[in-house]
């Protein structure tokens, strides 16, 4: 029987491994951390597993559940294994599932001093989970789902969130989540943090409108970038804006035998969606192993502004808009409309999905033809 190597033991990689084992395939998962489970392992709040495991649980529980299931299924789970290039791997199929991270302050080119007290949500949640209370006043940069998760973590850490900033004119999360976590926190819209002040500890931030907010911590949230090093080093074509490898609807990349799933290909969806990616990729991996089936070309989904990028996830096509837009989102294939949404307001940083079963075509038209996503205003 053939061998599959999966790189990354997060929700996407583990789910793919479990699904492949169910189909009798020998699977090795290489995970660089000492424990598998991916990012959810470090996120003690509830909000995981709804779509794939049909139960809402905390990150560590969700991760532990996946690891247990993988072990039970007979997945060869190797932790503490960093892959530096896929060329050295001997496998009949490779699945890249290396995830995505939030852009840190430096990658956002925020000027000013470089004091202690500047975090991404991920770094903050890990620090608080391991080391406890921090205290002080915090400014949260960004107003998407994860930003409000940061507000919650800050509260657990004994911090007072004094401002949330967003470059748009409203937040981009569920009103209920914003209300529940941050109804007393001023939301600075159409504003960006452009400078950090404080030589040793953060003292204040300066916003794009010139105003200054005194604070002790700054948390940069969202603004995801895939961990695409292996994909880039393998010369896989990339989506320019998402910085994710281009994949087909079955997560095949340009390189036969190499698949890519999870937040690596759609920065970022929730963990359960990454879990669905893992389930969706399994039959395609099997088709490759047994029939050698691979698309002739893997073409990126074309997008037109204000659509920022479009890729695939376990449910279908997932896309993002770059700005708040009113209109109908439309998917065309060689000029023919395949799907069109109702009139609506679409928010940046929010996952917008076109489900597979909602698209008109039934067979795979993707091999050499072009899909286009745009907004009809």
């Amino acid at each position, binding site marked *: 029987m053939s061998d599959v190597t999966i790189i990354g033991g997060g929700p996407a990689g583990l789910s793919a491994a479990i699904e492949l084992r169910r189909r009798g395939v020998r699977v090795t998962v290489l995970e*660089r951390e*000492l424990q598998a489970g991916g990012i959810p392992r470090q996120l003690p709040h509830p909000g995981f597993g709804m779509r794939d495991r049909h139960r809402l649980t905390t990150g560590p529980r969700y991760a532990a559940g996946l690891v247990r299931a993988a072990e039970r299924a007979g997945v060869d789970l190797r932790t*503490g294994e*960093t892959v*530096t290039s896929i060329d050295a791997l001997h496998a009949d199929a490779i699945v890249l599932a290396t995830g995505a*991270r*939030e*852009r*840190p*302050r*430096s*990658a956002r*080119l925020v*000027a*000013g*001093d*470089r*004091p*202690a*007290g500047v*975090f*991404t949500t*991920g*770094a903050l949640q*890990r*620090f608080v*989970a*391991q*080391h406890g209370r*921090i205290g002080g006043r915090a400014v949260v940069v960004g107003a998407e789902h994860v930003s409000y998760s940061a507000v919650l973590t800050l509260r657990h850490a004994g911090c007072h969130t004094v401002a949330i900033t967003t470059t748009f004119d409203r937040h981009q999360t569920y009103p209920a989540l914003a209300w529940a976590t941050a109804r007393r926190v001023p939301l600075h819209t159409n504003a960006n943090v*452009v*400078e*950090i002040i404080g*030589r*040793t*500890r953060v003292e204040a931030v300066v916003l794009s409108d010139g105003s200054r907010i005194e604070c002790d911590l700054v948390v940069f949230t969202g603004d995801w*970038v895939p961990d695409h*090093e292996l994909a*880039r*080093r393998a010369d896989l074509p990339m989506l*320019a804006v998402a*910085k994710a490898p281009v994949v087909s609807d079955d997560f095949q990349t340009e390189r036969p035998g190499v698949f890519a799933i999870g937040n690596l290909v759609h920065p970022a969806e929730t963990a359960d969606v990454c879990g669905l990616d893992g389930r969706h990729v399994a039959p395609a991996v099997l088709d490759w192993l047994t029939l050698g089936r691979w698309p002739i070309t893997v073409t990126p989904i074309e997008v037109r502004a204000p659509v920022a990028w479009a890729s695939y996830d376990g449910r279908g096509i997932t896309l993002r808009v770059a700005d708040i837009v009113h209109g109908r989102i439309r998917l065309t294939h060689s000029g023919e409309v395949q799907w069109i949404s109702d009139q609506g307001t679409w928010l940046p940083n929010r996952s917008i999905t076109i489900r597979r079963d909602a698209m008109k075509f039934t067979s795979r038209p993707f091999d050499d033809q072009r899909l286009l996503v745009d907004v009809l205003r």
Partner: protein
Amino acid sequence: MDHQFDVAVVGAGVVGAAVARELARHHLRVVLLESRHDVGAGTSKANTAILHTGFDATPGSVEARLVARGYELLSAYAPGAGISVETTGAMLVAWDAEQAATLPKLRDKAAANGYAHAEILDADAVGDAEPHLGPGVTGGMMVPDEHIIDPWSTPLAFVHDAIANGCELRTSFSVDSVQIEADSTVLTATDGRSVRTRFVVNAAGLHGDELHRRMGFDGFTVRPRRGELIVYDKLARPLLQRTLLPVPTSHTKGVLVAPTVFGNVMLGPTADDIDDKGATGSTNAGLDALLAKGHRILPALLDEEVTAVYAGLRAATEHSDYQLSHHADARYVCLGGIRSTGLTASMALGEEAVRLLAAAGLTAALRPTDELRRVHLTALGEQAVRPYQRGGTIVCHCERVTRDEIVDACSGAVPAHDLDGIRRRTRALAGRCQGFYCMADVCALAAAADGRTPHDWAGLA
């Protein structure tokens, strides 16, 4: 009152560290005094990390002589000490007719500086050598012997070497007052600690002018010239083969694009004269200017992710040359105004300090070589075999730093004091995620190693 030293070196930047190392090779009692918690944490940590041949120095200047000598000494010393060096070479790129016309003069200047390998290229040859350059190149000059070096390990290696040979290190010792007596001098720190020494070497960098005045002399004033830099992701490294230099002006060497020994690509520095010796922040104007320059030089660079942004302050003065002097009456040597080449010149400045001390009345005999101990750090460069490749447990994934390296960085003769110190000793936290994955773990390891809390290490206490 502390006990008596022969020489106190004030400032543990790359220059003071090199001086201390050189002095420790002699029969002398040496102390190295540093106001910060750590060595090499001033200008020496924030530069473009080029080991210059000195091809473009002003012929006949002290700087030209010491850069050429320092280049020789440090190139020879680095491999044995675990300081990563790469011979990438450099290419000056001309972007208009006037700049191209300057190149022959620069080649002649290089020759006057004793550097004979500079070679002028036409625009096509420049494009062939560096296919990712932006449009509009008019010519270039190859300088094949320019090196890139690990700027973090250099001062550390010197300090380790000095300590191994008997030098004492006092950190958090900010020399505040100076009392020159008949045959010794007392240096007192802001916290009241003091040392008595026969001779004093001023290697206080940006604060060298202040110490010089306290020693009773005058003659130069430091006006910081800030240089902002952007470090790009390692995935940008294939975009260039060598350091890409602009045609220099009298004010600055200009904005360059250079590979680093850690495998990144650096864009910078700017050059702004400012008044605040602590203003090592970056500015929106500076970053915008760098992006504009970078877009012209290497357009594809701007599509890559930014890993780090920082700024360093050059100890510029009203003079263009180094301000070196010796004062027999005060038993004092000053190494001032070491502006933009101090990393390269450091070891030559060490030698020069010994000469100047002798001129100021210090007699010192070299210790026999077999008595001297040498230190070898774990090399941090991408070209070196790194500990993770021998199978350690990786904690920092972006830079592939192992647990043992982090623990080691927090102990030993010159332990790190904060995350930045761990970064300079190991590269941990210096990578593309800037702590998203490993900051909490690094803090935990550091805290376990030295007894302070993770919050102390994160600077949050």
